[in-house]
């Protein structure tokens, strides 16, 4: 069936459409720098978007929970084996992506007999030198690097809009509270853009405001911070930090 190149290309193209359609409802995850490290954050109806991978590396995911989980476990296995066999300093997000999951994801996507991963991933790292690195990875293994923050979302328009807006903000000069407030505002605005673009897909069950999102959904957030006394510098946002954000958004 796929012996002719055209048919193979057509099948791959169909897979793109299939995955993009499946991803469409995925809620954004934003990752931005702030003056003591980096913040990764998002709202979702079910928890399971943000995870710790290694001492200085965190993951954000959009897509099918089982696929996100599968890739999360692969990243965890790779990171911990590398950290054990060599050193924690040898575990970097670049190596995990470039030599780890990216080639495997691409191969999986182009082997059209196999089910594709329905995911978009965000991998962030605060280096030993205190420099934040942001990576975005697509379901087909394509990945991009960003210096000043990035975002993933199910809808590509929303994702691109968030990417542009994040670059406009001096996040690296913000305190954590300021960065959280600004990121939450962008998250909120990005949802309005989506609903304007696709009126027919408006879902009344989705929260319309940030306040509704706080009430109905889970806010997941974490930081990688230089202020940590521990070897593992990942920590989830505290209740106080979330409450301060909640009260600031009215």
């Amino acid at each position, binding site marked *: 069936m796929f012996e002719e190149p055209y048919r193979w290309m057509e099948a791959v193209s169909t897979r793109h459409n299939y995955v993009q359609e499946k991803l469409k409802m995925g809620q954004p995850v934003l990752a931005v720098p702030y003056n003591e490290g980096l913040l990764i954050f998002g709202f979702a109806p079910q928890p399971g978007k943000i995870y710790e991978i290694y001492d200085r590396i965190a993951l954000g995911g959009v897509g099918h929970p089982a696929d996100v989980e599968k890739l999360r476990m692969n990243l*965890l296995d*790779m990171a911990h*084996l*590398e950290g*054990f066999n060599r050193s924690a300093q040898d575990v970097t997000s670049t190596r995990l992506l470039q030599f*780890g999951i990216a*080639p*495997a994801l691409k191969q999986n996507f182009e082997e059209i007999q196999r089910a594709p991963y329905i995911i978009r991933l965000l991998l962030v790292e605060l280096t030993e030198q205190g420099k934040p690195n942001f990576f975005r990875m697509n379901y087909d293994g394509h990945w991009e690097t960003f210096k000043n923050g990035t975002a993933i979302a199910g809808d590509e328009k929303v994702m691109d809009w968030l990417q542009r807006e994040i670059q406009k903000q001096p996040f690296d000069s913000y305190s954590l509270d300021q960065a959280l407030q600004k990121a939450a505002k962008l998250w909120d605005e990005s949802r309005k853009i989506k609903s304007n673009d696709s009126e027919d897909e408006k879902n009344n069950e989705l929260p319309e405001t940030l306040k509704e999102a706080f009430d109905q959904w889970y806010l997941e957030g974490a930081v990688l911070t230089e202020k940590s006394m*521990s070897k593992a510098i990942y920590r989830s946002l505290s209740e106080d930090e979330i409450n301060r954000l909640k009260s600031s958004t009215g």
Partner: protein
Amino acid sequence: MKFQSEPNTSAGEFFELLEKSGYRWHAKIEGTEKENSFTVPQGTTVLAFHFQDGVIVAGDRRATAGNSIMYEMCDKVIPIDNYTLMAIAGVPATAFEMARVLSHNFEYYRRSQLQSMSVEGKIRALSKLLKENVGMAVQGLGVVSPIFATYDPTKKKSNIHFYDMLGADFQIRTHTATGSGSQIIRGILEHEDLWGEKPLAERTSEQAKTLAIRLLQTAALFDSATGQARPEDDIYPTLATLTEEGYRFLGDDETAEIYKSSMKRG
């Protein structure tokens, strides 16, 4: 780095993952004719006792090989995770390897299962490693006698355990010590706990640190394999506390101050 495509069934067990990747604990050596060749670990003093805020764990810095002093800056108190410390006596290669496996095991479990391993689980993990090591230990190649200290932040309770060579663990309510200098100070610890100014568990952090330094200094006076502090070279014993905030190692300057004041009477 290898991408695994099969489902993960290890439920957060890092040692199993290591074995899948080809790692093997030291192979047993067959056919040795040397009988009863294992010896109780010699050449160190490490101790732990409960104090007001948690546990203090301390150790000297000397590493020996027979009668030779090989190294004076050995770290025998090792952080395993934020709430766990291990103090080691015995063969360093095996002890450090155990610490490394445990450290990755606990962190891998916490990250993969999205919850910390229970204190009982952590204690059991070290038991399993010691049991795996029996073959090496009875041949005299890898005897390890660790002290394992953990703090359970949910129960706000600290724990000290020591182990025998086969992996049996024993919970300590007051104090313990291991290594060649341990016999010298165990009596002092018991005396201090029973008839000292107040029981060890009621002492402040400062009092606990002072006592720990004095105990190690005493052990070094009688045991040649336990290293004394050498202020002229900025070498001091390792002191670490384990409290609600997690572990904390004292910096060199802080230890130097405590050492200075501890060496005075009173």
